[in-house]
């Protein structure tokens, strides 16, 4: 049994670091932070996302793919060749870690969509790439694209997160945003694709919680051409964000007000212009409200966002130090890499914390 065949709730630990000035740093700290919360995972999934890690290929989509075997790899590469110009392809380097077993073939491709294909379909490169990724994940059994953004990448697998970090040698990558996830699924899928983060183009999401609105969200987002094949919370949250921000072009702040809509009584207390706006958002996008306990970290090209459910049923702490901002499920996971933070803040339920790169502002 793996994700997609059954819906598996999971508890978790998450951690994230961003340098607002865009200074890059290697993956050592993020591994150390998530390792401290070892008890919040159970060895059945761990993963990381880094932004700014491929400066030499920053204009190419970086596809990270798990293959079960060489046959499906050949078949998938045929599809890739047909749709993309492949600038570079190769194994993602890993080192042997005793606890990491049954690893799939892990490949990486830097690609650009074939222009005539994109033009024929009358869509932009992002949409084209997203559709190809969804198609591979849906139709190519045994192949799974787990990362597809530009100048960013996800690294994940079955194991404790610190072992996964070691396995992928994250000390060799430098990024300006890092997020991490340690997983505590409630049964034993043991499938690498099921680990977090979940990504889609530049979006990456790590999530702690179990959303009770899942099927309402899924059936809403699937009306717009998405296919929730993994049946996981992160997958549906990513698609909701992609729909609201990339397709419907809502400003990020507004999109977050859709996902964790203010309570009606709070909307009524706003001034009439604001109340009217919030009411319109909630009326039109009521099916995109995410309900149930969650804390999530959303990485995207402009920065890092932390978000809690409306009544804060999952822990989330933030802290700053210099140009860096830290988030974690537990304060200790921040202090282990930043012993003297400048301020510690507990975001309220439903209060998004958006940290944008200064260069992008």
């Amino acid at each position: 049994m793996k994700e997609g065949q059954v819906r598996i709730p999971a508890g978790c630990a998450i951690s994230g670091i961003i340098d607002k000035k865009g200074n890059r740093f290697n993956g050592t700290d993020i591994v150390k932070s998530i390792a401290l919360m070892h008890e919040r995972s159970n060895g059945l999934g761990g993963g990381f996302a880094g932004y700014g890690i491929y400066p030499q290929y920053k204009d190419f989509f970086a596809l990270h793919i798990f293959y079960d075997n060489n046959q499906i790899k050949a078949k998938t590469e045929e599809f890739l060749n047909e749709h993309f110009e492949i600038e570079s392809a190769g194994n993602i380097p890993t080192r042997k870690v005793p606890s990491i077993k049954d690893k799939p073939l892990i490949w990486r491709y830097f690609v650009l969509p074939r222009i005539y294909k994109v033009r024929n379909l009358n869509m932009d490169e992002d949409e084209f790439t997203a559709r190809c990724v969804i198609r591979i994940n849906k139709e190519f059994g045994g192949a799974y694209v787990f990362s597809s953004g530009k100048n960013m990448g996800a690294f994940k697998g079955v194991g404790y997160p610190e072992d996964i970090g070691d396995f992928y040698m994250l000390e060799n990558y430098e990024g300006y945003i890092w997020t991490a996830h340690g997983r505590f699924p409630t049964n034993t899928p043991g499938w690498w694709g099921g680990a977090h983060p979940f990504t889609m183009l530049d979006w990456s999401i790590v999530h702690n919680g179990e959303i009770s609105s899942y099927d309402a969200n899924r059936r809403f987002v699937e009306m717009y051409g998405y296919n929730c094949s993994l049946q996981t919370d992160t997958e549906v949250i990513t698609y909701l964000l992609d729909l609201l921000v990339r397709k419907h072009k809502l400003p990020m702040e507004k999109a977050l007000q859709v996902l964790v809509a203010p309570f009606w009584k709070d909307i009524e207390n706003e001034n009439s212009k604001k109340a009217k706006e919030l009411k319109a958002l909630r009326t039109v996008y009521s099916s995109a409200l995410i309900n149930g306990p969650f804390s999530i970290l959303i990485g995207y090209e402009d920065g890092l966002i932390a978000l809690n459910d409306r009544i804060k049923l999952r822990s989330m702490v933030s802290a700053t130090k210099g140009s860096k901002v830290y988030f974690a499920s537990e304060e200790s996971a921040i202090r282990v890499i930043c012993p003297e933070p400048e301020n510690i803040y507990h975001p309220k339920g439903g209060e998004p914390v958006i940290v944008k790169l200064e260069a992008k502002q």
Partner: protein
Amino acid sequence: MSLNLVSERFEVLRDQNKCIQCQVCVKQCSNEVHIYDKEDNVVLSDNSKCVCCHRCVAMCPTKAIKIIKNRLEFKENANWTGEAIDEIYKQAQTGGMLLSSMGNPKPFPIYWDKILLNASQVTNPSIDPLREPMETKVMIGRKPDKIEYDKNGNITTKIPPQIELNMPIMFSAMSYGSISKNAHEALARAAEKLGILYNTGEGGLHKDFYKYGKNTTVQVASGRFGVHLDYLNAGAAIEIKIGQGAKPGIGGHLPGIKVGPDVSATRMIPEGSDAISPAPHHDIYSIEDLRQLILSLKESTNYTKPVFVKIAAVHNVSAIASGIARAGADAIVIDGFRGGTGAAPTRVRDNVGIPIELALACVDQRLRDEGIRNHISVICAGSIRNSADIVKAIALGADAVYIASAALIAMGCHMCQSCSTGKCNWGIATQNPELVKRLNPDIAYERLINLLTAWNNEIKEMLGGMGINAIDSLRGNRLMLRGIGLNSKELEILGIKHAGE
């Protein structure tokens, strides 16, 4: 005239030791079941007239009366039941169509009772509505596909008119004529107090009730009774009634006996005339005609009010619903075959249409498959009996539900299914002034508020149990449902898994 062969359906049992011959039952029974024999100082019964409405039972000061099923047996026969035989006797005697009231009473499957709800345990916490906010407000109306902003951060998208309901429940259409003025007053006032809507039905709006317009849906049916510009503008929403679950394919029936001076004035028809609505709207012979009526009603009311279209749940309901969404309706009401009525031909009521649960599930799925679910609100009607039915309806995909039979029961209805006689002893489905005044609108209003407040609290409790704190997150959330004792086809249509899966 030939001998009346129809057997009595009920027996009135009177405990003569308890009876004090006070004759309250004699005065209370509009069907004239109870007769006082002065000579012997005893109260007797004519069982043949009893409809089992329990008025005498409730009013008897010494609790001397019981009504039971007639113990008279026909020879046992699984095919020719007593009911089947009696119905033939009736028709052989009168030559008429059989007439019935209230919803389909036959033992068809009730899917609500074969669906179970979920609750949170450990992996996510249940939410306590006594200690945390819990939202049951819903917005009924057409939603745009997306919201757009201009450069200054102002919304440029125009939001079509929405009805804001404090809970996902409205009172369904019951015309003035089929029910009494006091019943209408209670419904209108309760709707106002609760922050929901009641519905005029197809009988127009009594002049005294225009003041409740903000909480009123005005109905336009094929008979167009009482429809004029002020009427359309009086309500918060307009409903085009194409069909009704109790009698799909035919129009409304109001027997002339119920058409007194007030009903006559409100409906704009002569006193004492039968008000038989045409089976179709004579300006709607196709879906494009419906679009024109929707637009004329919107034009008449300056595009300020949502237009609902109500249809009976029939075999092809999902395709019809898709057409209605594309015709520009703001909400579709789907009325299942157990929905009530003041009067319907028995054969139609008991044999035409499909269960609301299946209709609702396939309509919601069809609208989603076509990517137009957000274009229209879906209102589920046709025998919602309690708050659990509502939670299940919303999880299957409804935005809100209509209740009518339940509201009547709250006001005192005992489901004797004899509304069409106009002799309702509870003052609800009658226009006889002596009977109407038995229904105190102040008390009926309070009972309606009590019922819906209790249901809303129950909905919140069940939502919290599922780890949900806004009803928005329940709508269409079919993972919260499991079937029990259903076959795979039924599960497939309902779009739910079986318990244990």
